[in-house]
C-alpha cells in the first residue's frame, strides 16, 4: 500500500504532439512523474538515464522505431531487461516483426490507441506496475 502511494515515474514516447499532451496531462493528474520523448533515440537514452518505472511506447517513431527501442533496451542492461513496457500504437498487431517483438521482448501490454480511452490506458499502466512490483 505504501509502495503504490509513492509517485511513479513514467516515460511517455510519442511523436504526435496532441497525443503527447493529453497523455502527459492525464498521467500527471493521476499522480505520475512524466518524462517525454518524441523519437526513438531520445526515448532510449532517456530511459537509461532516468530509469522510469514504466515506459509507454509508440511504435512508428522518427529515427528508430519503438520495436527497435525495446529490443535495444532488453539487451542493454539489468534495468532495460526488466522495465515494464506498454506499447501504445495505432499499428495492428498483425505484422510479423510486431509478433516477433511481442514474443521475444515481452512488453506488458499491446494497446491499439483508437480502441482505448485515457482511463483504460492509465488502468493498464497501473496493472503492469503492480504486477512488476509483485514479481520483485
Amino acid at each position, binding site marked *: 500500500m505504501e509502495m503504490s502511494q509513492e509517485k511513479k515515474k513514467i516515460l511517455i514516447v510519442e511523436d*504526435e504532439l496532441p*497525443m503527447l499532451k*493529453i497523455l502527459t496531462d*492525464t498521467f500527471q493528474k493521476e499522480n505520475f512523474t512524466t518524462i517525454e520523448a518524441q523519437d526513438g533515440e531520445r526515448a532510449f537514452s532517456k530511459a537509461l538515464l532516468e530509469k522510469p518505472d514504466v515506459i509507454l511506447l509508440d511504435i512508428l517513431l522518427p529515427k528508430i522505431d519503438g520495436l527497435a527501442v525495446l529490443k535495444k533496451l532488453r539487451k542493454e542492461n539489468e534495468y532495460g531487461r526488466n522495465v515494464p513496457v506498454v506499447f501504445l500504437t*495505432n*499499428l495492428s498487431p*498483425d505484422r510479423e516483426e510486431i509478433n516477433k517483438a511481442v514474443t521475444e521482448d515481452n512488453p506488458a501490454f499491446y494497446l491499439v490507441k*483508437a*480502441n482505448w480511452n*485515457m482511463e483504460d490506458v492509465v488502468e493498464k499502466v497501473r496493472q503492469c506496475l503492480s504486477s512488476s512490483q509483485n514479481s520483485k
Partner: protein
Amino acid sequence: MRKIKNKFSKDFIPRINSIYLVKLLLLFTIYYVTAKLGLKFDAVSGFATLVWPPTGIAIAAILFLGYKYWPAIFLGAFFVNFSTGAPFWVAIGIGLGNMLEAVLGIWLAKRYGFTKEEGLRNTLLFIFFCVFINTMLAATIGVTSLWLGGTVSSAAYQATWLAWWVGDALGALIVGNLIISFRAELSLKKFKLTRTIEEILFFCILIISNLFIFTDFLSMRKIDLNNPILVYTIFPLLIWSSLRFGRSGAALAVFVTSIISILGTVLKQGPFSTGELSHNLLLLQGYVGVIAAISMILSAVVTERLKTESELINERNKDEAILQSIGEGVVVIDTNGIILMINQAAQTMLGIELKDAIGHHYEKIVHIEDKIGIPLKEKRRPFILALSSNKVITDNYYLRPRNNKRFPVTMNIAPIIFKDKVVGVIDVFRDITHEIEVDAAKSEFVSLASHQLRTPLTTMKWYSHALMQEGAPNLSTKQLEYIKEIYHNNQRMVGLVNSLLNVSRIELGRFLIKPVSLDIRKVANELIHDVKTYADSRNITIQKQYDITTPLVEADPNLIKIIFQNLLNNAIKYSKEHATVHFRIKNNNKEIIFTISDTGCGIPKDQQDKIFTKMFRTENARAIDPEGSGLGLYIVKSIVEQSGGHVWFSSEINKGSTFYVALPTAGMVKRGPGSRLIYS
C-alpha cells in the same frame, strides 16, 4: 418430294458446257477403247468376257466425276456393242445395263454411307454394292437383251449370264479398285526412298513368282505343272503387299497376278490349264475373285489400324506438347517418388535438364523449403502429404534450384487416380515472387493508411472523452450532448476503420489465428461487460446461460472478441427497447455452440441468403440504423470458417433472429503468416 426431285436433277442432269463435253468425250473414248480391247482379248480366248475392265472404269468415273457423266458410259457401251454387230435395240439395252451398273452401284453404296476414304467399312460397302449387286443387274439386262435379240439361246442364257456377271464383277473388283486406290493415294508427299525400293523389289518377286506359277516362261522346275498347291504360294506375297503398301499396292499386286494368271491359263500353261478353256477360266475367275477380295479387305484392315495408331500417337504427342508448354511448372511422379515427366517451365525454374530429372527421385531434384529457408521435414513435404491423405495439397513454399537463388512458389500437388487407384501425383507450381512483393506492398499500404487514419481519430476520441468527463460540471446539458455526439461519431469512425482493416486482412489472407488455452465463459463475461453501456442506453437486458461443462478451448481471444462483439452489437441494435437478448454457451463435446438471440426486427426471408455478403444490409436494418457498414457479419463468417467452425442463423421478420456459432472443442485451426489452407 420436290427437294428430292431437285437434288436428282442437279446430280443427274448435266449442265452442258465445254469442260463437261471435253471430259465426257475423254471418258467415252477411254471406255470405248478399253471395251474394244477387251472384246479383242475375248476373241483370243473365245469366251464371252473374262475380266471386263470397262465396268471398273465406269464405276471409278462415276465415283470421281459424278453421276452426270452417265451419258459417256451409256454411249460407250452402246457403240461398242453396235459396232461389233449387235442389233440396235440390243445395243441400247446393253448400254443401259452397263450405265445403270455403275450409277446404281455407286448410288446404293453412298446411300449406305460409302465414301472415297480408306477403311474396312468402305471396302465392304464397295464390294457388296459396286462389285456384287450391281453387276448382277448389268448381267441380267445385258443377257436378256441378247436373248430378246436372239443372239443368245435360252439354253445358253444361264452360262452367258454367269460369265457376264463374273467378268463385270472382276472388272469392278480389280480394275475399279485399282483406279480408285491409285487416284486416292497418288501423291508425291508420301514418297519415301526405302519404301519405293521395297515396292520395286516386291513387284519383281511378284512377277517372277507369277510367271513361275502360272506360265512356262521360267520352266526350270521339276514339279508337276498342274499341282493346285502352287496357287497358294501367291498368298504370302499378297499379304506382304497388303501389310506394307496399303490399298493401292494390294490392288496393283492383284492386278499383276490376275493378268499373268489369265495369260498363263489362256496359253494353256500353269495349274489352271487342266481341262476345257472355258472351264479353266471360270475356275481362274473364282480364284482371282477370292484373292482380290481378300487383299482388298486385308489392306483395308491394315490401313485402318495404321491410321488409328497414328491418330493415337498424334493425340498423345499433342497432350504431351500441351503439358510441355504449360507456363507453370509441371512434374509427374509415381508413388515411389520417381519423376515420370517434367515440363519445360519446371526444367527452367529448377535449372535442370530433362535427362537429369526423368527417372530420378523427386526429392533429389525438387528442394522444398519453408519461409525461413529450412528444408521441409519429411512428413510435411507436400508430395508425401498428397500421397498419404489422398487429397489435393495447396500451399506456398520456397524452391531452391541447384546453384541458384531460392524463390517462392504456390504449389498444387494432386494424387493421380487411375482406375480407382492412386498411381502417382502431379505437382504444379508457379513462381509467386511478384505476387508476394505486391502482397507485401498492399499490406504495408493498408497498415500505414490505417495508422494515418487512426491517429486523428484517437486524438479526437481522447480529447472529446476528456471533455465529456472533466468538463461536464461546467458545460450546459446541450453542450454536453453535442460533445457526446462528437464522441459517438468518432467512435463510429474508429469502428469502421477497424472493420476495414479486418476485411483487408481477411482478403489478403493475412489473418493470423493464434489459439491459446481460453476460458470461454470468462471471455464472454468480458464481452458482455464491454457492451453493457450500449445495452443500458437502450434499456436492454442481456441474459447469459453458460453450460457448466464448457471446457477450456484453444482459441484466439482477439478473434473471439471480434465475432461476439459483432453479434452482440447487432442483437442490441436491432431489438426494441426494454427487450432481452440471450447469450447461451452449450457444450456438446464435439463443438461448443454459442447462441445469441434477440426479439428484434428479424431478417426478411428473401434476403436471408445474402446476409453474410460483404456490404449487404437488409432494408429493415437500414431503416433502423442507417450508419452500419454491412461488414460485421461478413467478418464474423470469414473468421469463424477460417478457424474451423461454422455459423448459421434462424430468423423471422418482426419476431427476432438467433445466430449460432459452432467452434470445434478441439480448438481453432492455427494459422501462421503467409500459409494458405489445405482443402480436399
